């Protein structure tokens, strides 16, 4: 099955809210070799004007991933994880993610174009906080390989 072209323009329901925990931010920071004190030490983050530790920039992926699960769960999508390669990623921020944030993400499929035997799928996850204010938009381009027959 190839990628279903009717996915273009599809807007998914918002994800359940994700509460950003201080220890999760620290765990993620260690995993990406982020040793700046603002990621680890609440006092250092507060000295910069934040309520709590500041997540590294690519932490938004943890929330975006919830939307990817929605996409992979679509039965007739034609998208299978083992044939998927992450080709491009972009984050556009209104503000950094901070521990204590309650975030939701809403996925839109903004483009599908043929690429070899497969397709390039562009999606945007708009991540907002508990007040509905924009935090970050995460844009992914996935290369979905054609099925090997």
């Amino acid at each position, binding site marked *: 099955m190839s990628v279903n072209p009717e996915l273009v323009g599809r807007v998914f329901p918002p994800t359940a809210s994700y509460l950003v925990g201080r220890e999760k931010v620290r765990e993620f920071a260690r995993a990406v070799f982020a040793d700046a004190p603002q990621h680890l030490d609440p006092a250092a983050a507060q000295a910069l004007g934040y309520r709590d530790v500041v997540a590294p*920039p690519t932490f938004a*992926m943890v929330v975006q991933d919830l939307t990817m699960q929605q996409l992979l769960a679509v039965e007739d999508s034609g998208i299978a*994880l083992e044939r998927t*390669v992450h080709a491009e990623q972009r*984050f*556009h921020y209104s503000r950094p993610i901070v521990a204590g944030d309650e975030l939701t993400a809403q996925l839109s499929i903004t483009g599908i174009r043929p690429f070899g035997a497969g397709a390039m799928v562009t999606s945007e996850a708009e991540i907002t906080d508990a007040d509905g204010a924009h935090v970050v938009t995460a844009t992914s381009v996935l290369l979905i390989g054609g099925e090997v027959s």
Partner: protein
Amino acid sequence: MTSATLEVGTVVAERTVHLTRESLVRYAGASGDFNPIHYRDDVAERVGLPGVLAHGMLTMGLAVETIVEWLGDAGRIVDYGVRFTRPVVVDAEDGADLFVSAKVGALDDEAARIDLTVTFGDTTVLGKAQVRVRHQS
């Protein structure tokens, strides 16, 4: 360093990060990306990869962190995008060394564009890795 002293071409930060299989497992747990090509040789081989690969998002994440100390505040980052162009094969015994260099690529009134170059051996593994950072207020 203040924005007033920035010039296009200036290298603002560099570092080498040594990745091991443990780094990949740690990132898998922290990010929730448990694709087995990032920790199982047998699966990597079966799908035709040259070996167990680092997560692209791990490379993207560690690359941008190279400039955070120089920035003083990661909150100055307004946009960050990359293309994943080459895989990083992480050997079970020797691991993999990634070298990150961050250079001023462009300047305007509001922000600087910092271009990140990430190399693994002789190859560049990210394309168009660009970070837009607000000038210090």
